[in-house]
């Protein structure tokens, strides 16, 4: 079984992820742009019981566009957000793909969210993706 480790910049907060993600998505919404400081976020969604969290985490909760709470966990030492969940959906845990620090991470994204409305004009996702918004 594949086991991947995601860490924050300073290494205090770590996730161990077993198996393959359910799906990988990129999101161009403004909240993801602010959270990352990049121009889109990348998330790998796993079943919750396949992810183990170690280390100290701070929690930040915001209301998503659909009206539900999203709970983010970030490292209080360096600020990296490693994962987030939407309790209303109970559909797993999203892990920030950059925190795997693996440019060869697979699978590639299958969804590109807010693709038409919020994506920066100089960026394109060149694999086949389901484009939303």
């Amino acid at each position, binding site marked *: 079984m594949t086991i991947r480790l995601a860490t924050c910049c300073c290494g205090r907060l770590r996730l161990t992820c077993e198996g393959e993600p359910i799906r990988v998505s990129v999101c161009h919404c403004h*909240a993801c742009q602010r959270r990352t400081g990049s121009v889109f976020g990348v998330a790998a969604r796993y079943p919750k019981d396949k992810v183990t969290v170690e280390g100290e985490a701070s929690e930040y909760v915001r209301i998503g566009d659909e009206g539900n709470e999203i709970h983010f966990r970030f490292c209080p030492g360096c600020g990296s957000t490693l994962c987030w969940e939407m309790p209303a959906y109970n559909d797993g845990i999203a892990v920030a793909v950059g925190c795997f620090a693996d440019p060869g991470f697979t699978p590639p994204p299958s969804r590109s969210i807010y693709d038409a409305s919020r994506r*920066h004009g100089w960026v*394109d996702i060149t694999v086949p993706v389901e484009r939303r918004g």
Partner: protein
Amino acid sequence: MTRIAACDCGRLRATCEGEPVRVSVCHCLECQKRTGSVFGVSARYPKEKVKAEGPSRQYTRIADSGFKVTFDFCPSCGTTVHWHRGREGWGPSDSEGLCVLGHAPIPAFPRASHGGRGTSYENAVFGRCSISQSRVMSTNSL
């Protein structure tokens, strides 16, 4: 033009006057971990053109280049909004000023750095996202 960069919860903000000196994307593994995305994007401004407001916490690391880089992030939501750099022992910042991260639409084309992390700059994100600008330079230095 004045632009405001803000963290996700809005407590930490940076007001930026004028145009950035340059805009860069960086694919280094530290930027990937910091952002949780697959590259970081920064707009560099002269320090005197950026006014930061709100509470921040600092995280400092030594970059591959030997620069000490200090990141300011919001203690409430974790977003890194700006950073500055300086050579170890040279003081807290150098003359190039601040980098401001984030969402504000940026007029300048990005200049690549750390292209060596991927197979090529144009194939940066998992080899599957393109930066659609031909004038970018690929470099391994900040």
